[in-house]
């Protein structure tokens, strides 16, 4: 069988499986296993169903709750998210971003050293009857911390397995950010989702060890290191705890605090000065340590990411460093 035909058969089989997989058909699996299966199903559903819809994305920026409407279309294996003239296309291994009139393309190297942990490895999962979302019945998957507080709620469409609502929840119960479909039209879309041609992708290459001077701890809190990639101006690490993911971009040099985007707030995370932005897609933290500038992006709740980045923020200064400070300090002028 030709590869293309094999792929087609696989897609049809997956689609049939998804459609024939009502929530109640979990047999004798445990609540945690049911939840994991549902989450796994959302990851396949986007590839198996075409739709268009409107989603509301909200995020809490300090005491202000910000909100924006996003037009989402899924067709021909391509997901498009559009806000005004700004567009993001994603085909899995390649993402295209249109910012005003400028296009950027990012290619993801599918190879990885590490394995994404199972979502149940760190989070306690459960399912319950979910809310009506965009007029559709859902099952809610709830992920809780070890102390029993909710970290994330995901509403999964009972018919299709599509993710219709996602809430990331702070330890105090506040919803930090959410994505909720308000309208959803299933079936073949009239909108053609086409990525631009001839755009050179910003490809990073996977590496097995990071160059000297960079750090790549094997874990960040509960998240494990999955990929390391070399880019022209630094090293990109990607961590996952099965539910949330964190990217860490490292560059050698001194952080130019004045050159950072506006809107951030200065913060102190366990003794390290950082700049923080709260974005619809997650929390962004930037800081410098020992001649390396770190830019960290995570969709995890604030308490989870703050605990995780401790491994990358200022450690106790070594004896060598203290000796160097003592000897060379008098030569300084500041």
């Amino acid at each position, binding site marked *: 069988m030709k590869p293309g035909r094999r792929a087609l058969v696989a897609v049809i089989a997956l689609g049939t499986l998804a459609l024939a997989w009502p929530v109640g058909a979990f047999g004798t699996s445990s609540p945690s296993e049911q939840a994991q299966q549902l989450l796994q199903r*959302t990851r396949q559903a*986007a590839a198996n169903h075409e739709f268009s819809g409107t989603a509301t994305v909200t995020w809490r920026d300090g005491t202000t709750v910000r909100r924006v409407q*996003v037009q989402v279309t899924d067709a021909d294996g391509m997901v498009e998210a559009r*806000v005004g003239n700004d567009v993001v296309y994603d085909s899995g291994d390649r993402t295209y971003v249109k910012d005003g009139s400028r296009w950027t393309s990012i290619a993801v190297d599918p190879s990885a050293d590490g394995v994404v942990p199972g979502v149940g490895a760190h989070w306690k999962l459960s399912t319950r009857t979910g809310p009506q979302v965009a007029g559709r019945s859902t099952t809610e998957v709830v992920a809780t911390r070890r102390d029993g507080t909710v970290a994330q709620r995901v509403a999964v469409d009972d018919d299709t397995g599509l993710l219709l609502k996602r809430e990331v929840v702070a330890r105090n119960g506040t919803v930090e950010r959410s994505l909720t479909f308000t309208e959803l039209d299933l079936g073949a879309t009239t909108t053609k989702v086409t990525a631009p041609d001839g755009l050179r992708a910003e490809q990073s290459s996977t590496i097995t060890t990071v160059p*000297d001077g960079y750090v790549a701890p094997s874990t960040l809190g509960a998240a494990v290191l999955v990929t390391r990639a070399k880019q022209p101006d630094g090293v990109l690490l990607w961590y996952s705890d099965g539910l949330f993911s964190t990217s860490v971009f490292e560059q050698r040099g*001194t952080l130019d605090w004045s050159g950072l985007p506006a809107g951030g707030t200065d913060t102190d995370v366990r003794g390290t000065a950082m700049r923080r932005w709260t974005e619809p897609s997650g929390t*962004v933290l930037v800081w410098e340590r020992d001649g390396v500038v770190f830019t960290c992006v995570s969709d995890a709740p604030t308490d989870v990411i703050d605990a995780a980045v401790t491994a990358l923020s200022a450690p106790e200064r070594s004896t*060598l460093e203290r000796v*160097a400070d003592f000897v060379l300090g008098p030569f300084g002028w500041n």
Partner: protein
Amino acid sequence: MTDARDDFLATDMLSAYLDGELTDTEHAEVEARLAESPDWRAELDEVRGARTMLRAVAQRDAPEGFWDAVLAGVAAADVDLVADPPDGRGDAAAAGAQVVSLDEKRRGPGRWIATAFAAAAAVALAVIIVPSRDSVRPDVAAVVVQHGAQGSDRGDPIGTITPVGPLAGFRR
């Protein structure tokens, strides 16, 4: 036995090796040399140790006018070296009379002044220039998009990519 030039090249290559800046071929060559040569391994340890030490040094800004003073001093010493020596024999080329040997020139006071300024410059370079690092302005928006792209490949694309859409204000 390696000569000074080879030592320099080895240090240069090892520095690039530690920075991950070698081509695959060069990287393989260095790995092979490291495997077979204790000298190269010792050199690697030395280069790595020096870099660690330098990274630990706090950055200092030179006071205003410091570099001008150093450069002016070096320039003055340089002029002194080629100008009239203190014994009044005058410039050899201009006078066309007595050629002063290079050794005599080197023994003159200009040499000591130049050496002093060179030493001062070297200390300044060691303390100021070497530890100084490039100023970095991370492209935060690009990292956010990268994060979404990476997540979409390994998770749910709707939940991962859709929130990346409302980035417009952040990127500008």
